[in-house]
């Protein structure tokens, strides 16, 4: 086998926005109408947009390659082209060997079949032969940890069991190229740990891993090289640390492509101290974070969640208007909702990234997310390491000398 696992050569992908005729009832009048009005054809060209433009990279066997970028940057499109679900409009893509994706690990499950039947179904969908599955069956079942329920229809499974079974099947495919997309953002920490373990194993086995994530910490830790996409174009390709810092460079200016098309979107996030807009803080200092959002459609029970990430993108702190006992907001189109959080930054020295999510709790819907929305630096005089600053002080110090303690024996 050649040592290059993935080759992307000048790949372009075009999508069409707006109206698509998806029924004969609409299509027939549209076609007859078009015959008489030629100029409309030109207008439809404007509605096209490029999801990917001139994407070129190579991934070698045994290499972990990261892809990062804001929402709408073209990451998912790139993955769909890699996994051959979509065809590039222009350009060429070559994958050497068997490709397996840890994307939707339970996509092939059928609710009415038992766990065992679903292992065979999903296994063949992922490209394993029956014999291969048969030989790994015990391993797969043991890995999933649901031996007792393996002959129960999966519709009776809890969502955790469902995901575990799906993952164990996907994890037992021996790929030459493994694609991992955002699985680390779902599931509990044990599940995430298993995903990471699996990636390590695959890498050790000499396969290539293509990793797409918002979890910059894992990207920084794992990837040998990293690609930053923005509006379908390659912005930077190189060492993960450099690429990540490019990604974080201008966090307060939101990309047009990053602003979502949902009913409400975050328009600005500003961090200030008593004097005004500010980036540098001392531990324990008070900071105010102003969040402003605009509604484009009617939206009810909106709450704002504010959270903070550290340099390794670990979740440090998290709160929301609702959890702080404030009413959720009902917004009409055009309404501007602003809100200020006051925080006491009990943080140790380091760089932190506040981030904001607009969320409706009862229907568990995320309307908009901005991560990271700003950057703050906390500088300290020293003496404290770690993430939190607990303002340690020494109140008592005493040493009892062993030589001064008298023996009890007489």
């Amino acid at each position, binding site marked *: 086998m050649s040592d290059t696992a993935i080759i992307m050569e000048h790949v372009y992908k075009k999508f069409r926005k707006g109206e698509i005729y*998806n029924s004969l009832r609409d299509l027939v009048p549209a076609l007859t109408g078009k015959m008489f009005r030629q100029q409309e054809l030109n207008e439809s060209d404007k509605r096209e947009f490029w999801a990917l433009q001139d994407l070129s990279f190579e991934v070698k066997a045994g290499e972990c390659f990261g892809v990062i970028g804001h929402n709408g940057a073209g990451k998912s499109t790139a993955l769909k082209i890699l996994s051959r679900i979509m065809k590039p409009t222009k350009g060429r893509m070559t994958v050497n060997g068997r490709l397996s994706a840890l994307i939707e690990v339970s996509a092939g499950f059928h609710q009415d079949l038992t766990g065992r039947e679903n292992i065979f179904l999903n296994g063949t969908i992922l490209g394993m032969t029956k014999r291969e599955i048969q030989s790994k069956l015990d391993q797969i079942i043991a890995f999933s940890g649901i031996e007792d329920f393996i002959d129960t229809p999966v519709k009776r499974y809890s969502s955790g069991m469902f995901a575990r079974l799906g993952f164990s099947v996907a994890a037992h495919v021996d790929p030459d190229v493994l694609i991992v997309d955002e699985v680390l953002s779902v599931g509990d920490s044990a599940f995430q740990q298993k995903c990471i373990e699996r990636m390590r194993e695959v890498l050790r086995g000499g396969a290539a891993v293509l990793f797409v994530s918002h979890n910059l910490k894992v990207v920084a830790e794992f990837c040998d090289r990293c690609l930053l996409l923005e509006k379908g174009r390659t912005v930077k390709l190189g060492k993960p640390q450099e690429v990540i810092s490019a990604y974080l460079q201008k966090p307060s200016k939101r990309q047009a492509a990053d602003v979502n098309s949902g009913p409400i979107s975050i328009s600005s996030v500003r961090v200030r101290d008593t004097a005004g807009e500010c980036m540098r803080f001392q531990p324990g200092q008070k900071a105010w974070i102003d969040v402003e959002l605009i509604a484009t459609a009617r939206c009810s029970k909106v709450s704002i969640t504010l959270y903070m990430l550290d340099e390794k993108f670990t979740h440090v702190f998290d709160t929301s208007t609702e959890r702080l006992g404030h009413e959720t907001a009902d917004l009409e189109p055009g309404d501007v909702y602003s809100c200020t959080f006051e925080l006491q930054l009990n943080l140790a020295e380091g760089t932190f990234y506040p981030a904001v999510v607009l969320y409706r709790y009862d229907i568990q819907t995320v309307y908009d997310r901005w991560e990271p929305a700003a950057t703050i630096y906390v500088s300290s005089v020293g003496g404290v390491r770690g993430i939190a600053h607990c303002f340690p002080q020494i109140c008592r110090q005493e040493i009892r000398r062993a030589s001064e303690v008298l023996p009890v024996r007489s």
Partner: protein
Amino acid sequence: MREQLQELFKYRELLYTIAYRDIRVRYKQSVMGFLWALLMPILIVLSGIVVRYGYAIAAHEPLKAADIASVAVKSLPWAFLVSSIRFSSLSLISNKELVTKIYFPKEIFPIASMLASFFDLVVASGALIVFLLLLHLTWSPYLAWAPVLLLTLVLLVTGIGMIVAAASLYLRDVKFIVEVGLTFGIFFTPVFYEVGMFGDKKKWLLLNPISPILDGFSACIARHQSPDLGWFAYSLSCAILFLVGGYIFFKHLEPGFAESI
């Protein structure tokens, strides 16, 4: 196209697995289990007997066992055709998750739907044999035609299945059109009646490529004759045309499935 066929062959295990899943699921969900495979054909045979009884009264003739046998023999392939095309037309839409998430040759879905319906046909054929024996129908060497006719029907149905599957992914109302077509198709196809009843005008009826196949079944099983060779050749060429054309059509549209579904 050769590469595409090789790929389909490579994924044959997946085809069997999906077909097996479709069969499993159909029999698992229903209380009736295997009776489900019999319900549709039994209903068609019963309505056919009612219609033929009406003809017999109008013609002042008794209803013959051979007529009932003919209706029964044609009802099963018709039921197979209806269920196969119906399931095929929904096969891509109802597997949206797999169409958009994982790569494999997607013609597996309509073909698997056809195989699952074929399984129903096999089950129902068992019952048909018992029924024909009860009617004291004897066998003849012409019975050897039955598998040939069945194969022709399978080719035709697979071709149509691929066309309607791909078309209903792009155009949401195709599945309703298919449904209407399948409901009224029975009037344009000799299931309840015989093409012979139409005298000189029967050639118009036989232009429907399904008609010569069904008439052939009736001829070789119920009437102990050879099917009309000319019309059989016509059906076979139509079947091959539909299969090849359907496959090319499907493969042409396949790259856009994930973004259009």
